[in-house]
């Protein structure tokens, strides 16, 4: 397949909305480099799958980028020290989704010294793909768009699966967040390199990068960086949430529909986030493991919103301090974007590999859920990108009829939050569905 087969216009997925995007807070400016902290609380399991095993103990000295936890099995990635210093206690801190998680303390010595660097592959085009794949794993790279699934696993599909297209998610459809936007503007060459490395690992040539139209600078930067590479195509997409949803993005760019319950590889696609690609390029070309990421700190209460290159293990409290604190009362603290992020009750939660944003919402921006009566107005049904009968599902789940919920395909819900955004009655639909999905999974497991 060649790029000239590409559609002139991307496909339009059904449903979707365009919420007030709030990106203006952080569109301008560049990625800021914050000062070094005295202490980092590094969450040990930052990937989906098996938690890596800590191999340092209290009092050990570590260097920046030194591997401090070894992967266990294949679906696991190592962890690296964010700075040089000594290892402190291992204790429980609150995790991004509420459950307590184990974290190791790294006390900085202020020197910020790199450890022995890994081997660099500046000439990655002529490097063995197994070496590149191993590097992706050794650098601790996971899906940085939010899923935190180990990238090396994604990049080694079963041999019987034929992958022909690498789909790159630069849509950043979540309102408020601009981390990927800034990354694309400032490090377009890294992203393109990362895309090339991924394509090489997957032994394919066609790379499609979907970017929403509201990021013209990013599109320009990517096009400049990809100049001369015919197989890498940057496709501007309509500004519509959830344009960056895996299935929606694949449909928009290739017109292929991932079947319910299926994976992108079923239709020959592989989806990677731009931040992940930048990390891959950094790891392969410069030999640096994943120890920091770009985080958007934004929201109307934030005194000085902006994008920061934050080391993993930085408490949210510190990041907010860098951003000048708050200038009005805050009602919600969210890790991630406003549509799919997690509300936090504590400022001690730390930045991890999948934290794309820290969002504060003021009292005037937060509307309480009311569990009002469903009017069956059908706004949710119209807007659902997965074409679910949300109003029926919502009522069914409210009555805890999980058998009916399963019949109505609740398992296909991707929790994008649109149905809840548009609901005039203020029903917490997503929470209903999350619960229903958990219950149904538990029921099926018991059977």
């Amino acid at each position, binding site marked *: 397949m060649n790029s000239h087969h590409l559609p002139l216009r991307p496909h339009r997925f059904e449903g979707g909305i365009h919420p007030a995007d709030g990106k203006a807070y952080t569109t301008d400016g560049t990625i800021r480099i914050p*000062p070094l902290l005295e202490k980092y609380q590094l969450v040990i399991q930052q990937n989906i799958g098996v938690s890596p095993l800590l191999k340092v103990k209290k009092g050990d000295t570590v260097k920046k980028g030194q591997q401090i936890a070894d992967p266990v099995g294949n679906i696991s990635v190592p962890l690296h020290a964010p700075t040089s210093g000594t290892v402190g206690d291992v204790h429980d801190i609150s995790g991004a989704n509420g459950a307590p998680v184990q974290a190791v303390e790294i006390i900085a010595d202020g020197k910020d010294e790199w450890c022995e660097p890994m081997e660099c592959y500046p000439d990655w085009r002529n490097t063995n793909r197994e070496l590149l794949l191993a590097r992706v794993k050794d650098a601790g790279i996971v899906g940085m768009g939010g899923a935190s699934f180990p990238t090396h696993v994604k990049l080694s599909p079963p041999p019987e699966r034929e992958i022909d297209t690498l789909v790159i998610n630069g849509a950043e459809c979540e309102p408020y967040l601009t981390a990927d936007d800034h990354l694309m503007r400032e490090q377009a060459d890294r992203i393109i390199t990362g895309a090339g490395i991924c394509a090489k690992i997957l032994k394919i040539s066609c790379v499609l990068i979907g970017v929403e139209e509201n990021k013209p600078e990013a599109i320009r930067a990517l096009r400049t960086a990809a100049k001369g590479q015919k197989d890498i195509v940057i496709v501007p997409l309509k500004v519509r949430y959830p344009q960056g949803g895996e299935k929606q993005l694949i449909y928009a760019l290739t017109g292929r529909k991932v*079947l319910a319950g299926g994976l992108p590889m079923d239709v020959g696609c592989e989806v990677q986030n731009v931040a992940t690609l930048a990390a891959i390029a950094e790891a392969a070309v410069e030999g640096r493991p994943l120890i920091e990421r770009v985080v958007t700190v934004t929201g109307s209460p934030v005194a000085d919103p902006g994008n920061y290159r934050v080391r993993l293990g930085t408490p949210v*409290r510190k990041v907010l301090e860098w951003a000048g604190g708050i200038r009005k009362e805050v009602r919600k603290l969210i890790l991630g974007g406003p549509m799919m992020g997690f509300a*936090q009750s504590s400022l001690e939660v730390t930045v991890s590999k999948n934290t794309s944003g820290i969002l504060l919402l003021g009292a005037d921006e937060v509307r309480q859920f009311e569990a009002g009566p469903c009017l069956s107005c059908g706004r949710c049904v119209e807007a659902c990108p997965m074409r679910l009968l949300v109003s029926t599902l919502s009522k069914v789940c409210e009555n805890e009829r999980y058998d009916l919920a399963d019949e109505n395909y609740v398992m296909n819900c991707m929790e994008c939050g649109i149905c809840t955004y548009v609901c005039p009655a203020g029903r917490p639909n997503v929470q209903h569905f999350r619960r229903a999905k958990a219950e149904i999974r538990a029921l099926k497991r018991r059977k």
Partner: protein
Amino acid sequence: MEFSDKTDNKAPVQPAGQSAVRLPEAGTLVLSSSPHIRTSLNITKIMAQVMLCLLPAVIMAVYHYRWNAVRVILLCMIFCAGWEMLWCKVMRQKQTVRDLSALLTGLILALNVSPLLPWWLCLVGSFAAIIIAKQVFGGLGQNPFNPAAVARVALLVGAARPMTTWAPLPSAFQHLDGVTAATPLTAASQSAAQQASLDLYNSNEFLWNAFIGNIGGSLGETSSLAILIGAAGLLLFGLIRLYIPLAVLLTVTVFVWIVNQVSPGITPGPLFHLLTGGVMLGAFFMATDYVTSPVTHLGGVVYGIGIGIIVCVIRIWGSFPEGMSFAIVIMNALVPLIDKFCYKRPFGWNPVNAFQPRRGEIK
């Protein structure tokens, strides 16, 4: 290989300890499920917008029937709100009258009755609408039947005489005998029964008067123009989709046209049926009631077609001259079945999992 920027930075160590900047206080943060932002639209707003869209019809009603219209509209709205408040009080539940849904029901009910309706029938009608059709089912959102339509049906069946006593229209189409006293629908079906000529009802002059509202009828049924202005408002506010009203109106047109082709003389033409009676009001304001209509677009079309057919059958062959509210209530009863059969398949759904899109080819 060189990249355009350097991320390796030597930054000063930030001292630990409390800083001076203001940070969110623990204990004040709200924990809730995503999404964290929501539309500003709420139920009260929707109800207010619908009432606003009914304003042209109300103005026409007041213009035609003067104080009678004001009296019936106010009575119905007050009684409906009153029943709702009373119910909430008696059942010791949260007062729901503020969502304006009861007032809207009252307004639609008022537009569905004769301007000469005595006050006690307004009271009974409001009772049927709010208590029997809505609150015993659990209140707003739970009722399977349209409250205003149920109330109108109950009044029509239980108190046919007061419901069909029409006020003479001060400004009406005076030179049509009988038209001012009875609604054109009644007059037409009587003429048809006596096998008299129906040419009058198909005349351009009559239809024009019916369109702008110079004919008798229930408060909101007189002027199709006013209803259409209101309907434009509904569409503008994004409150309704056109699937249901268009299905109703098209079905009525086609059905009446076919009947006229098959056996001419038993009923006036399609335009007459569209412009007189409650078809316009029903199609745009009652059939589109969120709670009692199907949620999918396909379901809406089926529902609209059903209403169209039933209303024509009742008008042409039944003993009631007008069948809009009957049709709406009957189709309301069918909505759960329609919802069952007119569902959407989820994205990527396939009956046989064998289907795989062809590789290496972009459609």
